[in-house]
């Protein structure tokens, strides 16, 4: 990838410092309506050079529409999209220095893997003698060098996914758009591909914009995440920021699960894994811990952890995750419909902004 102008830092530089990186993609006041329904409104985004940026949200939240507007498949009703300062809002897809990995991969079924990967180079009139090398290089990157002569129908889902990736990155675009690329794969393969995608992104240094509805995937891979809901961006930030300091109840519950409690006229958020459960009242420093009792309703063994559901005296329901560490577990000491004690450190409770 020596010819790639985007490759600024060596692959080993795993800790990215993106705060100082220049803005590559800018969306300003993007609006999009379809016959009476609002798909996207008031979307403002700055995506930096080299960033792994994720649009996270449920279906119909506007994340895919926003991605498709960056690709050029949809035209915004209002607003502007720039790449490196140049306005691309009115450019057709084939004039944009952007490539897409489609949800259904969209591999051309009548072409071999190599022909699929070469398609973009041929369309851009790359010198014929350079094409085979670049195709081979891209296939090597996704570890499919030996599959060049196969047809897409002769590949597994995971292999097709990687061909789609190679077909996009071979063009060295400024931005790579990925539309739920792992959605059709099973869990094990998905986790493998998450690692692969991060590796490839570090190697080529291309800015990734990644669309997913899977919060775990977003947390694992992203430098920053924009959480979409109802056509708007609810919150934007690093995975840790979004998890620890969600701006809204929606974000709190979309990224992981949360207990939202009404106390003293305010909404408090406590993550289930931060709560302890005890058969008897624990002895704790009341200055820094909150302790109260409740009735245990459900105990569910999940494998890595045990899930408890407790009803508190004010009627609210509390979800608790207890790690199944070796030996001692509360599970064997508590019984359903009996009273238990719950506690959490005050530092773990987070007040939701009003």
């Amino acid at each position, binding site marked *: 990838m020596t010819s790639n102008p985007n490759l600024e830092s060596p692959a080993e530089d795993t800790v990215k410092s993106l705060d100082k990186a220049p803005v590559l993609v800018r969306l300003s006041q993007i609006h999009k309506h379809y016959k009476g329904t609002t798909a996207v409104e008031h979307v403002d985004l700055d995506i930096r050079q080299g960033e792994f940026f994720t649009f996270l949200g449920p279906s119909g939240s506007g994340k895919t529409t926003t991605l498709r507007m960056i690709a050029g498949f949809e035209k915004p009703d209002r607003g502007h999209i720039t790449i490196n300062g140049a306005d691309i809002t009115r450019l057709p897809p084939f004039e944009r220095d952007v490539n897409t990995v*489609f949800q259904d991969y969209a591999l051309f079924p*009548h072409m071999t893997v190599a022909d699929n990967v070469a398609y973009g180079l041929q369309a851009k009139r790359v010198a014929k003698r350079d094409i085979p090398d670049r195709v081979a290089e891209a296939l090597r990157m996704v570890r499919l060098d030996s599959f060049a002569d196969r047809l897409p129908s002769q590949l597994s889902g995971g292999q097709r996914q990687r061909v789609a990736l190679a077909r996009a990155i071979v063009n060295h675009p400024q931005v790579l758009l990925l539309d739920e690329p792992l959605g059709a794969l099973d869990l094990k393969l998905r986790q493998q591909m998450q690692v692969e995608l991060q590796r490839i992104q570090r190697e080529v240094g291309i800015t990734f914009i990644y669309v997913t509805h899977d919060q775990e995937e977003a947390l694992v891979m992203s430098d920053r995440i924009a959480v979409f809901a109802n056509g708007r961006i609810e919150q934007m930030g690093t995975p840790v920021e979004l998890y620890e300091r969600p701006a809204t109840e929606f974000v709190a519950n979309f990224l992981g699960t949360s207990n939202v409690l009404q106390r003293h006229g305010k909404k408090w958020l406590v993550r289930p894994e931060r709560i302890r459960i005890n058969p008897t009242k624990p002895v704790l420093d009341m200055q820094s811990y909150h302790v109260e009792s409740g009735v245990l309703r459900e105990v569910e063994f999940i494998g890595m952890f045990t899930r408890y559901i407790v009803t508190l005296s004010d009627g609210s329901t509390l979800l608790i995750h207890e790690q199944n560490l070796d030996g001692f577990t509360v599970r064997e000491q508590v019984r359903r419909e009996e009273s238990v004690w719950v506690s959490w450190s005050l530092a773990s409770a987070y007040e939701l902004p009003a």
Partner: protein
Amino acid sequence: MALDKALPLGEPQQSPLRSLAIAVWRRPALGASALLAGPMGWLVLIYLAALATLFISAFWSVNDFTGEIVHSWTLDNFRQLVESSVYPHIALRTIGIAFAVTLTDIVLAFPLAYFMARIARPKLRAALFAMVLLPLWSSYLARVYAWRLILSHDGVLNWFLLELGLPRAHIGYTNWAMWIVFSYIWLPFMVMPIYAAIERIPGSFLEASQDLGGRGLRTLRKVILPLAMPGVIAGSIFTFSLTLGDYITPVLVGGPGSNFIGNVVFSNVGIANNIPFAAAFATVPLVVMAIYLFIARRLGAFEMM
């Protein structure tokens, strides 16, 4: 109890239908045979048998005096075909016009089918479907006669040309007339399969081509055309074979010098009473179609089906 009797699975009852259903479930081949018995019987008895009879009778001859069929093997019919000064000419005319009609219909049908499948909104698409299929609701003869009214010497076309101050077009009763009328009549048979093929191409393929830098022409040439090929081939089999076998349009709009293979077959069966010779000539379109399919297959036209 009454409830027990209402439950069908409660007690096994011996109805013949039930045992039949179970037998079919146990042996899927039985079910398949039941499905195919009717159509296969039809195909073998009526279609293949007729075709075989035709093929065999092509090697018989007719006694010139008695007019009776002589059941002894001979290649005379085929020799007569090849050595004649008329029949090769007729065969070439038939095949040539069938080719021209097929090409014309591909050129006309492809943009229309593309528009219907990918651009038109549902209402417009339904309207276009109706317009494409409407001619099939009326009689074939009526439509060919309508074209006779248009193309003849004092027809609508020439009236129109004269109104514009242009010279008359001498299209009526020529090969040009047959080309126009055949292209018109078989057009729906080309539009439908191409429409089906284009409609089946996922939209993301076209987006992917654009995304990779492919402008309209490249997308058409490299993605749409190869994937629509099975539809084009299917349509061309219709237009080609329907034109090859026709004998009505040549009579009505082609005039005296425009005989098709079908007309020779017709006159040999009906007038000359020489069924073996008619059969021999009728094998020509059959062989041409076989060659056509073979070439299409060689070109990979069926691979994406």
